[in-house]
C-alpha cells in the first residue's frame, strides 16, 4: 500500500502569478514618484492615474497600497505602488 508521505504541498505546487517586485523609486517633496531605477534611472514625467487599495485589514499584515500609473521619460508606462504598511515601492501590473 502507498505510504503516507507526510509531506506538506507548498509553494512548488501553487504559485501566485503577478507578484510585486521591489523597485527603487526617488520620491519628491510630496512623496510622489519622481524617478524610477529600472536598468538605469529614469525620470517620471507624468502621473497618469493613481488609486488606493486597502484590504485584509483584519489580518496581522493588512494590505494598504497606493498605486501610480506613470509615464517615464523614455515613453514607457509603468504601474507601481507604495506599500503604506511596509513603506517600500513595488512594480506590479494591475
Amino acid at each position, binding site marked *: *500500500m*502507498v*505510504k*503516507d*508521505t*507526510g*509531506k*506538506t*504541498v*507548498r*509553494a*512548488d*505546487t*501553487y*504559485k*501566485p*502569478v*503577478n*507578484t*510585486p517586485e521591489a523597485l527603487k523609486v526617488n520620491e519628491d517633496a510630496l512623496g510622489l514618484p519622481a524617478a524610477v531605477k529600472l536598468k538605469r534611472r529614469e525620470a517620471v514625467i507624468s502621473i497618469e492615474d493613481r488609486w488606493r*487599495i486597502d*484590504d*485584509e485589514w483584519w*489580518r496581522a499584515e493588512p*494590505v494598504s497600497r497606493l498605486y501610480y500609473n506613470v509615464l517615464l521619460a523614455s515613453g514607457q508606462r509603468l504601474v507601481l505602488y507604495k506599500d503604506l504598511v511596509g513603506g517600500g515601492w513595488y512594480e*506590479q*501590473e*494591475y
Partner: protein
Amino acid sequence: MQGIDNRTFVLYNIAAMKILCVLLPHFAWRCEARRNPALEGRAAIVIQSKDPASSQKLVVDWSPELEGLTRDMPLQQALARHDSADIIPADLPYYRSVFKEILDGLEQVSPLVEGGDPGCVYVGADGLHLIYPNDAALINAAREVTADFTPQMGIAGNKFLAALAAQQSQPDDCKIFWGDAASFLKDLPCDVLPVSVKSKGKLRDFGIRRLGQIAAMLPGPMQSQFGLEGKRIWELAQGIDNTPLLSRFMEEVIEESATLPSITVSMDAIVTSAESILLHILPDIIRRGFGIRNLTLWTRTWNMENWEREINFREPAMDIKSIVVRLKRALEDYPQPGPVEQVGVRVNRLGYPLGRQRNLFADMRAQEHLADDIKQLELKLGNPQIYKVKEVEPWSRIPERRYALTPTSR
C-alpha cells in the same frame, strides 16, 4: 457434535483473552499542551462547532483542573462555570495524527492494537510472555509510548472490564483485574455501560441504577425490553464482553495538505488547492492500479477552526475531473466556517476499478500523450517544469491573488 466443539473453542478463547486498555484522559487538551507548552497549568477549554453550518460551539475537552464540564456541553454553559478559561478551537486532524503516532508506537509493543475514539486504545496482551515476562514489563513498555499523556491503564479478560479497570486506576498507573467480575461490577452505576444513550435513559426510567440490579435479573426480561442490546447489557453486567479485539485497518492512509499563499474565502482557490494535492497523490495510486474509494476533504481556517467532509465513490475514482466535481459539490453544500488558510486531502480507502477502457478519440489520446511527456520531463529534471495558469480570485483587488500557477503534470 461439531457445534459443541466450536462452542468450547470460543469459550476457551474468551477465557484466555488478556487485554490492556490504555486511556489517555484529556487527550485533545494534552495534544494542544504538547504543541504549545505555555498552556500547561492554565485553564483551557477545547471547543468545536456542532456542525459546519452551525455557529453553536460544543465542549470537546478541557484542562484537568477544570471541574463540572462534560463533553458536548454548550460553550456558554462551560463559560458560566469557568469564565476565565482560554478557548481553543479543536484541531481534529492534528489530534488524529498524534493518535496515529501513539497507535504506531503501541504496535511496537503488541501487534494487536485497536484504537477507538482518540484517547482510548485496546492492546492484545496474549502470547507476549516471551517478550514481556510479567505484566509490569508490558505496562512499562506501553507507558513509554504514552508518557506525554499521563495514561491510565487496566488489564483484564475483556475490553469492558479492561476499560473499567483503566478508568479506576491512578494516572500513570495500571489496575489489573482478575477475579470475580460480578462483585467488582455490582456497585458501579449503569452509566459505565458502553451502550446507547437511549438504553441508558430507559434503564433510569425503570429505576435501575446499579449493574448489580441488572445482574440479578434473568436475561429474558432484559432482552424483551431492550431488544438485542438488552442481551448485551445483561452480559456486560455479568462481566461478559465477547466483542473481539479488532486490529487497526491495515490500509495506509495517504494525507497531504497545502498551505495557501494567503487566506481566502474563494471556493475556486480551495478547489484549485485540493486539485493540486490530488494531482500529486493520484498518479502514484493509479500506477498501482487503484482508484480512490473514499476521501476526506478538510480545511483549517485562519482562526484554527476545522471543516471536513467525507466523500465516497461508488466506482473507485481514477479521474481527477470526477473527483473535483464531488469536491465542489461538498464545498457548495457545506459552507466554510471562516476564511481558509490550509486545505488537505486524506485518502482513506482505495479500491480496484472494475474496468477501464482507453479513450477512442484521438485528441483525448493526444492529451494523454502530452501529459505523459510532461511527466517524463519532470522525472528527468526533478521539479515541475510546465505550469498552467488557474483563476483563483479573478475579482480580487490585490493583483497577485487573482491567478496562480499549478503544475500541469500533477
